[in-house]
C-alpha cells in the first residue's frame, strides 16, 4: 500500500503531523503499536509558547479548545507548576493562592484522587480547605464496578447535573470548588457547563492515570484525522525498514507482513522509552526500527538519578537529526525520514520538552515535508545537547539495506 507519508507512532505527535499533512492534501497513514502518552496527559502542553493561529485552528477544528495564559496550575499531589498553553479544563492562576476558602470534593470509593495531599498543598499556599465526599449510591447514581477515572467519567458524564446539585448543597461561603478531573470523557462541553452552573470558581484537579482530558483529546484528534481521510492502523508495529542509499523506501509491519507500506516520506514519532521509541541494553540506548543515531551518556551510571523526584538524565536522550528534523544515521541524514515528538528527547533544547515540544516538532516536520525535499547535507547540526554525544550504530538487524 502506498501513501504520500507514513507516520510511525500515533500519539499526540503523529496525529498532529498527520492532521497537518492531510489538511495540506496529502494521503497519509499512521501506524501505532499501542496506545500512547496522552493517557497520562495533564492537560497542559509544557514548553509551548503562545499558540500560532495554525495550531489553534488545527485543534479547534477537531473540537479541542485551548487557552493560553502564563501562570501556575495545580498538580495532582497539591504542588504547583508553571504552565501556559492548556486544554480548557485546566485552570491557570497568576499565583498559587487562587482562593481563600476552598471546598475540595472527592468521591466515596475512588482511590485515585489524592484529596488530602491536595488540601495540604493548598493550606501551605495559604488557603482554607474543607474536604467533602460525594456518595454516588446515596445520590441515586449506580457506581461503576471499577472505580477508575475513565469508568467514573463514563458514569458522571450522564449524571453531572446531579453532581452539581449535590455540590451546591455542600457549598457554604467557599469561593472555590475543586473537583477531580473525571468529567467530559465523551462530551468536551461538560467541564464548562459545570463551571457555569456553580456559584464559585471551579477547578478540576488531576487524578492518577488514565487521564480523562488526555483520552478525550486523543479521540478527538483521531476522529478528525479519520474525517480528513487519514488511515490509522491501530495496534500494528513497524518492525523493519527498507533503505537504499540514504532513502527509506518502505516499512514492514507485524500485522501486514509481506505487504509493505511504501511512501515518499516517513515520520518517526514512536515516543520515548515508555512507548518503545527508544530502547536500551545494559550498554547502550538505541532506536529499534532504523538504528538511527541516538545521543546518550556513554557511562551507564550517569543515566539515572537515584533520587526518584530529581531530573533523570535518560529522559534527555533522543534521536539525532539535522536542522530540518531529518534523522541521522551513521552521521548523515536519511533524506526522507523525519523525527518528531518525545523520541527527540532533549536533543533539541530550542524545541523544549514535553507535549509542547511534540506539537512544535510535529508541525516543523510536516512543514519540512510540505516544502519539498531539500537535501542540504551541509546543514548537519547533529545533536544540540552538550553532554550526550551522538552514537552511530552499525546497521541494526532490523534495517535491510538493499544492494
Amino acid at each position, binding site marked *: 500500500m502506498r501513501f504520500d507519508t507514513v507516520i510511525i507512532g500515533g500519539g499526540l505527535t503523529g496525529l498532529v503531523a498527520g492532521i497537518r499533512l492531510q489538511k495540506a492534501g496529502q494521503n497519509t497513514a499512521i501506524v501505532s503499536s499501542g*496506545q500512547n502518552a496522552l493517557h497520562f496527559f495533564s492537560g497542559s502542553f509544557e514548553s509551548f509558547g503562545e499558540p500560532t493561529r495554525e495550531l489553534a485552528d488545527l485543534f479547534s477544528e477537531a473540537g479541542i479548545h485551548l487557552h493560553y495564559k502564563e501562570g501556575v496550575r495545580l498538580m495532582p499531589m497539591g504542588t504547583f507548576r508553571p504552565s501556559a498553553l492548556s486544554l480548557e479544563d485546566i485552570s491557570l492562576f497568576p499565583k498559587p493562592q487562587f482562593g481563600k476558602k476552598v471546598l475540595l470534593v472527592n468521591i466515596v470509593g475512588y482511590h485515585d484522587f489524592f484529596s488530602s495531599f491536595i488540601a495540604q498543598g493548598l493550606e501551605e499556599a495559604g488557603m482554607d480547605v474543607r474536604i467533602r465526599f460525594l456518595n454516588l449510591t446515596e445520590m441515586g447514581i449506580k457506581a461503576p464496578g471499577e472505580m477508575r477515572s475513565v469508568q467514573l467519567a463514563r458514569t458522571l458524564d450522564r449524571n453531572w447535573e446531579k453532581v452539581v446539585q449535590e455540590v451546591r448543597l455542600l457549598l457554604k461561603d467557599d469561593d472555590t470548588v475543586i473537583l477531580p478531573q473525571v468529567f467530559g470523557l465523551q462530551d468536551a462541553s461538560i467541564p464548562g457547563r459545570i463551571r457555569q452552573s456553580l456559584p464559585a470558581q471551579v477547578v478540576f484537579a488531576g487524578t492518577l492515570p*488514565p487521564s480523562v482530558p488526555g483520552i478525550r483529546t486523543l479521540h478527538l484528534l483521531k476522529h478528525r484525522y479519520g474525517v480528513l481521510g487519514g488511515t490509522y492502523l*491501530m495496534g500494528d508495529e513497524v518492525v523493519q525498514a527498507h533503505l537504499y542509499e540514504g532513502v527509506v523506501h518502505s516499512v514492514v509491519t507485524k500485522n501486514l507482513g509481506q505487504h509493505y507500506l511504501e511512501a515518499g516520506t516517513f515520520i518517526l514519532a514512536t515516543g520515548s522509552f515508555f512507548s518503545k521509541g527508544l530502547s536500551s541494553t545494559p550498554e547502550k540506548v538505541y532506536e529499534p526500527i532504523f538504528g538511527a543515531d541516538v545521543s546518550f551518556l556513554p557511562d551507564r551510571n550517569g543515566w539515572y538519578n537515584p533520587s526518584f523526584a530529581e531530573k533523570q538524565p535518560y529522559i534527555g536522550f533522543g534521536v539525532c537529526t539535522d536542522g530540518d528534523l531529518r534523522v541521522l544515521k551513521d552521521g548523515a541524514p536519511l533524506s526522507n525520514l523525519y523525527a518528531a515528538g518525545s523520541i527527540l528527547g532533549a536533543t533539541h533544547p530550542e524545541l523544549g520538552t514535553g507535549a509542547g515540544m511534540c506539537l512544535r516538532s510535529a508541525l516543523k516536520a510536516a512543514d519540512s515535508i510540505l516544502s519539498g525535499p531539500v537535501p542540504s547535507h551541509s546543514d548537519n547540526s547533529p545533536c544540540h545537547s552538550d553532554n550526550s554525544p551522538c552514537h552511530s550504530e552499525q546497521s541494526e538487524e532490523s534495517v535491510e539495506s538493499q544492494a
Partner: protein
Amino acid sequence: MKYQEYTVSPHNFEECTKCTVCTVYCPVLEVNPLYPGPKQAGPDGERLRLKDPAFFDAALKYCLNCKRCEVACPSGVKVADLIQSARLKYDHSPIKLRDRILASTDFMGKMVRPIAPVANLVTGMGVTKTALDAILAIDRHRSFPKYSGRSFEFWLNRQRKEQAAFPQQVAYFHGCYVNYNYPQLGKDLVKVLNALGVGVQLLDKEKCCGIALITNKMTKEATAHATHNVAVLEKAVEKGLKIVTTSSTCTLTLRDEYPELLGVDNSAVRDSVLLASRFIYEKLEQGAALPFRKDFHKKIAYHTPCHMEKLGWGVFSEKLLRMIPGVEFTLLDSACCGIAGTYGFKKENYKTSQAIGEPLFENIRTVNPDVVACDCETCKWQIEMSTGYPVQNPISILADALE
C-alpha cells in the same frame, strides 16, 4: 548480561508496566461489575496464579476474548491470551451441555442441515425459544442462525472442473457459517475471484476453526481441530496455494490462536492464510481490474470486528469498499458489538452483551446506512437483531457491485 534481551515470559506478561491503559478499552469492564478487567485478570492475576493456582478467579469467564486490551497495550502484553490460557489451564469446572452444543458448530451443522427447513422452523418458534431459554439457558431474545438445505461444499464440488480451469488457484477455508448457514457468501467470493481469473478449491476436508471450543474451554477438542486443520492447510500450501478466508475470526484463530493458546505449530502455513479482502486488494494493486456496474449506489457503514481490529487488516476491506464506484463510505468508530461468538447466546450474558453493543448500535442509527459492512458472521447476527439494519460481508457487497 545478554540474557535480559532474550528472556521472554509467556504471553509477554512480565512486560506489564501497570499503566492501566488496557482498562480503558475493555468493553466488559464498562458494563459488568463482576468482571475484574484485563489488567487484574491478565498480568496481575498471572503473578498470583503462578504462585498458587487457587488464585484463579472464575469471573474470567466473562472475558469476551475481544483482544481490545491487547491492541491498546503499549507494552506488547498479550493480555487476552493470558486470560484465555488461564481459563484453559485452571478452570476445571464441568462444561455445561449448553456450552458443548453452542461450541460444536460443525457437528450441529452436519446434524441439522439435512432437516434444515424443520430445524429453522423449530428454533424460530416461540415455544422452542422459551424451552431453550429454560432448559439450556440460551437467551430467548436470540434468533438462531438459519441452516441452509445444501452445504457450500456440495455446491462447490459440483463445479470443480470449471474452477480448475482458471489460471490461478486458491484454496478457500470457508468455515462452518458459510458451509451450513450462509453458502451465498461463499458463492459471492467465487464470483469475485473468478472475475479476477482465480479459481477456488476446497481444502481436503477442513474442520471448524475451533474458536468456540477454545472460548468454551474444550481444549482437547480444540487442539484436535487445530492439528487437523494445520495438516490440511500444509497440504494446500505445499501445492503452492494461498488460503483465503471470509471470516475475520476464523482467520485470527488459524493464524494466532493455534500457536498462542493451543501450542499448535502453524509456522508453515501462517503467512499463507489471507482474508479474501486482502487477497483481492493485493490483486488489484498489482494491476488486475474488476468489472464494476455503472448503476451501483449504496451508503455503506463499515464496522471493524474486534478480531479484525486485532488482525489489523480492516484497512483492506475499507479500501476495497471505497474503490467501488457509487459507494458512500463511513468508517464506524471501532467498538465491540457485544456478541463475541457464543458468549452473547448465553442467558447470563445477554444483558451485558446488549449493553456493550449499544454505542455501536447508536452510531449505526445516526449514520443510517443502506447496509452495514463487516467481515464477521456473529457481528452480523448481533447487529441485525439489535438495529434492524442489514449486514453484509464486504465480499458480498463487491459481488453485488460487479456486472
